[in-house]
């Protein structure tokens, strides 16, 4: 083939355990590695967080009337953003848990920061439904089961309650999984850090980890079981999110294909976001040897595959609308999407989610980083539009035409959405600066496995590796 040969490896360059350590931990130990790009991104993040703070303050002072929500469109940007953010988080769990169970060792170099992404995305997501209640501190009694003085209990038959449990469980489990993975890496950093304050702090957060085999043994048991638990969990979370819609009778929502199609869409958007962060970070921090072109290639392929599942979901949506024989379903799912007042959104959605990712069929294009970045932005926008088309748009026209009403977002709708993006960027860049962005011990494990399989085609120079690790002399 005329294409440049793809670098078919998960770790490149002449590497030994110490050099892997060095390239990852120096991002924390040597704070001078964080130069202008970090400050620019962090400033953007801080500004977004400021906007978010302003939007929330004004919302709590004034009430949800500052948003464009109306009746019948009671669910709008808040729920769109909630679903979008939750979806973005799902790639992290897919990478860390499902790929672990499927024994895909290439996940080892990207799982840490996608898990971080999961946690931050769920934090952003959680804000929206809480703030949509207007006064979250008053809403607690119908969100959480506790013995309140009114003697009331939450309504467990409601998908919204399931959502509360699914999202809070998801956040807790992701956090535990993430922290468990960080413990041995904190120990590595503790042993490498020269700064006394940092050493003490790291010794505390690593719980005195000493790398004992007896500990590793139980650690791996727990880690594998947590992965096994996270796998059905992540599938359940977005399924339950989709129940919010699928279990209703609103035309455009009442579709049984929603759960699997929402999960695929979540992974689709999530991988686009992972790539959006991975590509610049590997460049700025020179991690090209650990996050290789092979990783980019694989992630692009997963994006394409999940994109095709999403496309299939769209076609099934149309099929069910026709097959149900319900004229309102047909009107909402096809006619209004193609010719109605929001047809621009549906057209843009098809271009972003179905047309744009097809670029990933071409191997050479999957290696053009700028192109991958552009496609990923299309996917992010497209997945947001998908939720916009499904959620507020379906509400604008119901069974009773006299109740139809357009929905227009306000400045504060956009303000809060952009604010959470800024908040997310801020957290991500703080994470990059103060925590190991790649799982150190798992990459070492990967290197050990790559070296153990001598027949594997790896681009590591055998002589240098032999001198560094293999020889034992």
């Amino acid at each position, binding site marked *: 083939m005329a294409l440049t040969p793809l670098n078919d490896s998960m770790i490149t360059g002449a590497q030994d355990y110490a050099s892997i350590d060095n390239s990852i931990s120096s991002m924390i130990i040597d704070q001078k590695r964080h130069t202008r790009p970090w400050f620019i991104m962090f400033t953007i993040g801080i500004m977004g967080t400021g906007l978010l703070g302003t939007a929330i303050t004004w919302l709590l002072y004034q009430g949800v009337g500052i948003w464009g929500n109306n009746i019948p469109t009671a669910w709008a940007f808040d729920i769109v953003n909630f679903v979008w953010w939750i979806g973005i988080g799902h790639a992290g769990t897919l990478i860390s848990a499902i790929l672990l169970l499927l024994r895909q060792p290439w996940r080892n170099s990207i799982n840490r920061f996608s898990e971080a992404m999961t946690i931050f995305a769920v934090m952003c997501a959680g804000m929206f439904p809480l703030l949509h209640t207007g006064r979250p501190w008053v809403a607690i009694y119908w969100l959480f089961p506790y013995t309140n003085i009114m003697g009331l209990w939450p309504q467990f038959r409601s998908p919204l309650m399931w959502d509360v449990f699914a999202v809070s469980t998801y956040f807790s489990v992701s956090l535990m999984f993430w922290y468990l993975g960080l413990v041995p890496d904190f120990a590595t950093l503790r042993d490498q850090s020269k700064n006394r304050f940092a050493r003490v702090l790291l010794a505390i957060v690593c*719980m005195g980890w000493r790398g004992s085999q007896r500990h590793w043994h139980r650690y791996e048991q727990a880690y594998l079981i947590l992965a096994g638990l996270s796998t059905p969990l992540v599938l359940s979370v977005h399924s339950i999110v989709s129940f919010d819609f699928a279990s209703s009778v609103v035309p455009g929502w009442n579709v049984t294909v929603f759960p699997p199609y929402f999960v695929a869409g979540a992974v689709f958007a999530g991988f686009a976001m992972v790539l959006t962060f991975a590509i610049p970070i590997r460049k700025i921090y020179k991690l090209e040897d650990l996050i290789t072109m092979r990783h980019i290639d694989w992630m692009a392929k997963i994006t394409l595959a999940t994109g095709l599942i999403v496309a299939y979901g769209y076609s099934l949506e149309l099929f069910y609308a026709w097959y149900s024989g319900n004229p309102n379903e047909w009107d909402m799912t096809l006619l209004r999407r193609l010719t109605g007042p929001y047809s621009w959104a549906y057209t843009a959605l098809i271009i972003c989610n179905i047309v744009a990712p097809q670029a990933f069929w071409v191997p050479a294009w999957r290696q053009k980083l700028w192109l991958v970045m552009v496609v990923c932005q299309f996917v992010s926008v497209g997945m947001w539009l998908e939720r916009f088309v499904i959620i507020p748009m379906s509400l604008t026209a119901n069974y009773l035409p006299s109740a139809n009403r357009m929905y227009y977002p306000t400045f504060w709708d956009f303000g809060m959405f952009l604010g959470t993006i800024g908040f997310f960027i801020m957290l991500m860049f703080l994470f990059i600066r103060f925590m190991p962005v790649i799982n150190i011990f798992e990459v070492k494990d990967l290197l050990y496995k790559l070296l153990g399989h001598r027949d594997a085609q790896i681009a590591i120079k055998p002589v240098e590796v032999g001198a560094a690790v293999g020889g034992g002399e």
Partner: protein
Amino acid sequence: MSYSGPAEKGTFALVAEFTSAEALLEAAEKIGAEGYRETDAYTPFPVHGLSDAMRFHDVRMPWFIFCGGLIGGFTGYTLQWYTATIDYPLSVGGKPFNSLPSFFPVTFEATILFSALTAFICTFALNGLPKPYHPIFNTPGFQRATVDRFFFAIEKSDPKFDPEETRKFLEGLGAVAVSEVEN
């Protein structure tokens, strides 16, 4: 085994240092075959096969997690059943008070949450962490145990432990250094 009780003076263990996981595995196999049981290896990443070589086996964790999951599922369902049928029965669309299908998601999530919490807590509890001090940290060069060196300790509490014999034995296994570590 893990260190327990206040630090008494004297030898804690003889610690051999290796430069590769393969060398450590080989040595661990021989040490295990020799009959040493109060041993431990310290590695920067989990080396598969090492537990077997050390004749170490512990399957308590999965059972704990399983029980955690059972308790979680039971708690989740009972919570819904009690609130919906006994404490605050409310007829919604004529559905039965004990609406089994609607109670599945929360039961499921509670199962996952409790098992994950059990896994998380057990990892630390069974490993005796957090433990800020351990005599193994007195080993010269032990900072590299989390970077690129592999250590193997035969503890003094082992019945076969003999300061001279054990040291000679360890030195014959290809270790780059063997050191006596104090408590």
